[in-house]
């Protein structure tokens, strides 16, 4: 199928719109001048300043810790929830349960953040890394559960029955058959939870205390006052990490695809 000029134009403009702002950001992160919008020459000095800024490094460390813990916890809980929803047939309060899975997806972050903060104050829990982890786990597990349950729905239940039939205990059937098959969904659920946690400003702002500042909070308070070259450098690093991750992921899946294709071609 050949594309018409109209279609080519919309694709070009569309992707230019999506990517130009980030490309400009990356380019200007190498600008020497403190005045971000005036190009005076190539320099990597803002990267140097960034990496010597202990506050940013601390925030990055806190963010990473929170993301790893909350996404792992969210993956476990979200997978359990998906399993309960798809396989749990009937249990009391099922409607409430599925409502609680879907509601956080559409709930404005300001409300989720506010309500969790009020809870933490109410039970007298000191705000810090722990409270952010709890908050992030709660909304991320819902995303994980949606991702995993969409895979579970299309999962042929007779595979599990076959495993039982061949002598597996229910736990073995889950471990040896179900889990390997839904693994891609569980992994992408984890990745989604991880990025959501890395990215979150609003909920973290509500649920954190003075002891734990995450990177988005740090960035937000910096950019509120305007564009800053350090933030440009930091953004570039974050974009680079994501791009690298996506490229690696797509290379891996491509390699698997090619391998399978070869396997198919090898049959007769």
């Amino acid at each position, binding site marked *: 199928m050949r594309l018409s000029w109209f279609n080519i134009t919309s694709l070009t403009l569309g992707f230019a719109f999506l990517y130009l702002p980030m490309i400009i950001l990356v380019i200007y992160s190498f600008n020497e001048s403190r005045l971000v919008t005036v190009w005076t020459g190539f320099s990597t000095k803002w990267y140097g300043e960034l990496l010597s800024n202990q506050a940013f490094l601390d925030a990055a460390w806190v963010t990473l810790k929170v993301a790893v813990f909350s996404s792992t916890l969210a993956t476990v809980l979200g997978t*359990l929830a998906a399993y309960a929803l798809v396989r749990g047939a009937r249990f009391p309060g099922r409607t409430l349960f599925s409502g609680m899975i879907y509601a956080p997806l559409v709930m*404005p972050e*300001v409300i989720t953040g506010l309500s969790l903060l009020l809870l933490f104050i109410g039970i007298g829990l000191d705000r810090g890394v722990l409270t952010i982890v709890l908050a992030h786990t709660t909304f991320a597990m819902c995303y994980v559960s949606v991702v995993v349950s969409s895979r579970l729905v299309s999962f042929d239940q007779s595979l599990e029955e076959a495993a039982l039939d061949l002598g597996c205990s229910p736990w073995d059937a889950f471990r040896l058959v179900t889990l390997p098959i839904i693994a891609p969904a569980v992994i992408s659920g984890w990745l989604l939870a991880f990025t959501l946690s890395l990215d979150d400003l609003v909920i973290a702002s509500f649920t954190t205390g003075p002891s734990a500042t995450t990177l988005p909070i740090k960035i937000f308070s910096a950019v509120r006052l305007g*564009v800053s070259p350090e*933030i440009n450098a930091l953004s570039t690093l974050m974009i680079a990490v994501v791009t690298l991750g996506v490229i690696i992921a797509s290379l891996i899946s491509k390699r698997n695809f090619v391998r399978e294709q070869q396997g198919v071609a090898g049959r007769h």
Partner: protein
Amino acid sequence: MRRVFIIAVPYLWLLALFLIPFAIVLKISLSDVAMARPPYLPQFSWEAGWGAFLSQLDFENFTFLTTDDLYWKAYLSSLQIAATSTLLTLLIGYPIAYAMARAPDEWRATLMMLVILPFWTSFLIRVYSWMGILSQEGYLNQLLLGLGVISEPLIILNTKVAVYIGIVYTYIPFMILPIYAALHRLDSSLIEAAEDLGCSRAKAFWLITVPLSRNGIIAGCFLVFIPTLGEFVIPSLLGGSGTLMIGKVLWEEFFNNRDWPVASAVAVVLVLILIIPIVLFQQNQQKQNEAQS
């Protein structure tokens, strides 16, 4: 035993960290501000019992929301901004989704990846990237002044226009993906059949393509509209002090004014407003699922 465990763990988690917190918001929205820690009354105490506790709750904060025009203006302005930017996102997103669906098969995976990729980069950074472009001495004004299109720099940052741009930019993948999914399923022989029966290209598009991608359009619109309504980051970074959005008002009420009861009332009303589009969206999704199965 195992079954109970699987259901109970996530269930209790969500009860404790989603439903109960929300009940607390509801309760505080019915309380009064007080110079206390936490700064509201009544506090529940077992000695006084439920009766005394409930009798102190009232709708004062909700009445307050209607008397101070800041709040209803903020709600209206949020609705207006969300609706306008949803429409803009649709107008910009549809041609992209359409072109993607028409693209050669070997491009599709790459195009899909290019649309999804921004999802994985920080939302905050994506919004931030427009600050440098739209500011008075920003790249856009530099370009336009350099080209001689304008003689005075445009003021875009800290206006609604900047908010629209920010919303369209960050939420457009939500619009493109469902529309693309609908158009992708569309059998191209339907268009050929319409043309064979005497439709012009444009007419066939209007009579066949658009109605058959309707579910994608509706899903996309809700996916943009619902989250923008409570948006905080975009109005506070791009909208300036002149742009009223309810997420921002809530934030300021809470952090700057420390008026927890009013902030909670704002939240409760926002949820009530959101219920309508969410229910409509659910119905649309359900209809779509039924149609597919």
